């Protein structure tokens, strides 16, 4: 017993390899048993470092169990269990197999104690997760998956380069606090930033997540970005730049969320916005802020999964997830609608729901540090997230104008997964003590004060009032079947246009130059023809008299030159 066998990562990755060989009930039991077995392992895993091994002369550390990694491993296992239940109705083996391997890779990355091990699992999350996008088997999903994979692998390359620079400078690959000034620090920061969907590096998320399968998107929403949050918290806590990056991340995606039609894409934008709160917390870097980031990641994974599950259920039953085509579904899917509202209340941070007890720590930390502007932006984003995730998602899917669509309620396994997730959202919100006990630093924070509850309720209910007034007056922008330009335009339109433009320019240059060269060649040919051709001046047969005259002239010229 060295402790390394207690890492749940192996259980999920190796167990996932068996999924393709199982059918029916055996597969169902197996896919749910794997995350549960992982939880048992994690329960027994003591704090400490296990699995040191030498590789090409470097010291690797496969499992580092401390408060940060254990907290994230717990929530990753909970998410994996929820996703497995949610995917039980899926007939193909690819989705549960890829999903569980993906969860295992994310847990392996969280436990990695050195940058090389982190890199290996970092890339494994990319390779396994893209299968969940491709499993949708549409041309759009294939394209989006390809773009997603390229971006993820680029992040991995940057991580590798940064790690090598650090190794060259310090002789160690250990993954501790890095900071921007450290050798390779900027490269690693960018690698984490891509996976964390920093502004302008974010668009792979909104591009790929809504193209995945119903269950695939739920898996995707849980692991990749939160792994990046974990890595940032470990490597770059207290990096001031992150406060601004995080604040920008909370604010700008919500404008897109208001005008987006695909409701799973709306959720992808709000996922980006929630990551902003965590990133800002890492930038603030106090114990309260980092506790806020860790607890918000925990509750976020569950309520975001719940929201994606409810929208996935709608997509599964109705066949579309566009706001323009939905409405009135509460009549057909009352349970799904109720669970969706629980998720919406949690992401909006209503008192008694999970977001309230975690997000408030980050705002309080910003206030305690006197970061006025950051605090105002975060408060704006808090109102905005209620507006587009809390109200818009349930309203357009389940209420609004009745689309006339009638369908069956979601399958029992989907409802079960949603019920458990909703129970956790409310449980954490009502009784946050167990979550607080898991946090990286001792918690001295009381979310439920009269002042706090009142101010939060005012913020939210007045936001609801704004929505109601704008809806009733017809000012609220209607949903439209359209594409909204985002930063993916740069690599989907601008860069290809640039390449096509350069190609066209080259072709034009070749055509012009080629034409000119051919014309010059023709002119040269004509000139030679004129002088040396059969009838040319220099080629025709001369008369004897003419020859004698030219010879006499040349001799005379020679004589003149001789006497000069």
């Amino acid at each position, binding site marked *: 017993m060295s402790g390394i066998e207690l890492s749940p990562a192996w259980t999920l990755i190796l167990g996932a390899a068996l999924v393709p060989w199982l059918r029916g009930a055996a597969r169902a039991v197996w896919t749910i048993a794997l995350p549960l077995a992982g939880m048992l392992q994690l329960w027994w895993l003591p704090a400490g470092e296990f699995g040191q091994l030498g590789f090409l002369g470097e010291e690797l550390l496969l499992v580092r169990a401390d408060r940060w990694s254990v907290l994230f491993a717990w929530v990753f296992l909970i998410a994996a269990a929820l996703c497995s239940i949610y995917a039980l109705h899926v007939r193909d083996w690819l989705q549960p197999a890829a999903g569980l391997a993906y969860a295992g890779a994310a847990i392996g990355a969280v436990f990695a104690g050195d940058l090389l091990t982190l890199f290996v699992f970092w890339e494994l999350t990319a390779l396994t997760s893209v299968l969940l996008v491709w499993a949708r088997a549409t041309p759009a999903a294939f394209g989006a998956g390809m773009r997603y994979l390229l971006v993820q692998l680029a992040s991995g390359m940057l991580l590798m380069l940064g790690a090598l620079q650090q190794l060259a400078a310090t002789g160690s690959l250990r993954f501790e606090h890095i900071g921007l000034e450290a050798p390779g620090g900027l490269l690693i920061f960018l690698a984490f930033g891509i996976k964390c969907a920093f502004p302008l590096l974010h668009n792979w998320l909104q591009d790929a997540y809504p193209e995945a399968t119903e269950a695939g998107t739920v898996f995707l929403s849980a692991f990749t970005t939160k792994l990046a949050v974990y890595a940032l918290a470990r490597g770059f806590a207290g990096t001031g730049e992150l406060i601004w990056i995080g604040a920008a991340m909370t604010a700008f995606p*919500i*404008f*897109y969320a*208001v*005008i987006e039609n695909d409701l799973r894409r709306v959720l992808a934008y709000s996922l980006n916005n929630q990551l902003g709160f965590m990133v800002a917390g890492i930038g603030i870097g106090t114990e309260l802020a980092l506790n806020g980031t860790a607890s918000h990641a925990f509750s976020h994974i569950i309520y975001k999964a719940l929201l994606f599950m409810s929208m996935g259920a709608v997509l599964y039953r109705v066949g579309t997830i566009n706001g323009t085509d939905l409405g009135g579904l*509460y*009549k057909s899917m009352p349970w799904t609608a109720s669970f969706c509202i629980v998720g919406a209340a949690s992401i909006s941070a209503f008192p008694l729901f999970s977001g309230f007890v975690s997000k408030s720590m980050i705002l*309080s930390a910003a*206030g*305690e540090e*006197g970061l*006025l502007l950051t*605090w105002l932006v975060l*408060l*704006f984003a808090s*109102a*905005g997230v209620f*507006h587009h995730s809390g109200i818009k998602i349930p309203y357009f899917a389940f*209420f609004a104008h*009745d689309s006339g669509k*009638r369908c069956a309620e979601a399958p029992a396994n989907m409802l079960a997964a949603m019920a458990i997730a909703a129970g956790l959202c409310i449980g954490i919100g009502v009784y946050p003590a167990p979550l607080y006990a898991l946090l990286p630093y001792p918690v001295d924070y009381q979310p439920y*004060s*009269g*002042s706090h509850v*009142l*101010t*939060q*309720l*005012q*913020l*939210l*209910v*007045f*936001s*609801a*009032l*704004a*929505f*109601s*007034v*704008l809806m*009733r007056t017809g*000012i*609220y*922008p209607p949903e*439209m*079947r*359209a*594409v*909204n*330009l*985002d930063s993916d335009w740069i690599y*989907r*339109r601008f860069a290809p246009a640039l390449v096509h433009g350069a190609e066209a320019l080259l072709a034009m240059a070749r055509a012009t130059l080629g034409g000119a060269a051919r014309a010059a060649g023709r002119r040269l040919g004509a000139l030679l023809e004129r002088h040396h051709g059969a009838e040319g001046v220099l080629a025709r047969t001369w008369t004897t008299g003419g020859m004698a005259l030219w010879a006499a002239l040349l001799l005379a010229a020679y004589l003149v030159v001789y006497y000069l």
Partner: protein
Amino acid sequence: MRPAERRYWLDRKRNVDKVYWGVWGLCALLFLVEPLVHKHGEFAFEDWFGFHGLYGFVACVGLVLAAKGLRRLLKRPKDFYERH
């Protein structure tokens, strides 16, 4: 048309009106109880009467109007990326 589909509570416009005015009522209630609660924010202006409510309302109206404006700049046909 399906014959005799059940009529839901929200199908009546009168009830939708009730929900709408209910939100107004809830807002009024939250203002009414404010004097009973001792507020202790990190910034002095948080203690102004109704600050969070007004901030939430203004933020959301601003957000929607700005997004509506942005749409003029960002909106493209649905098959924008499929065209060549």
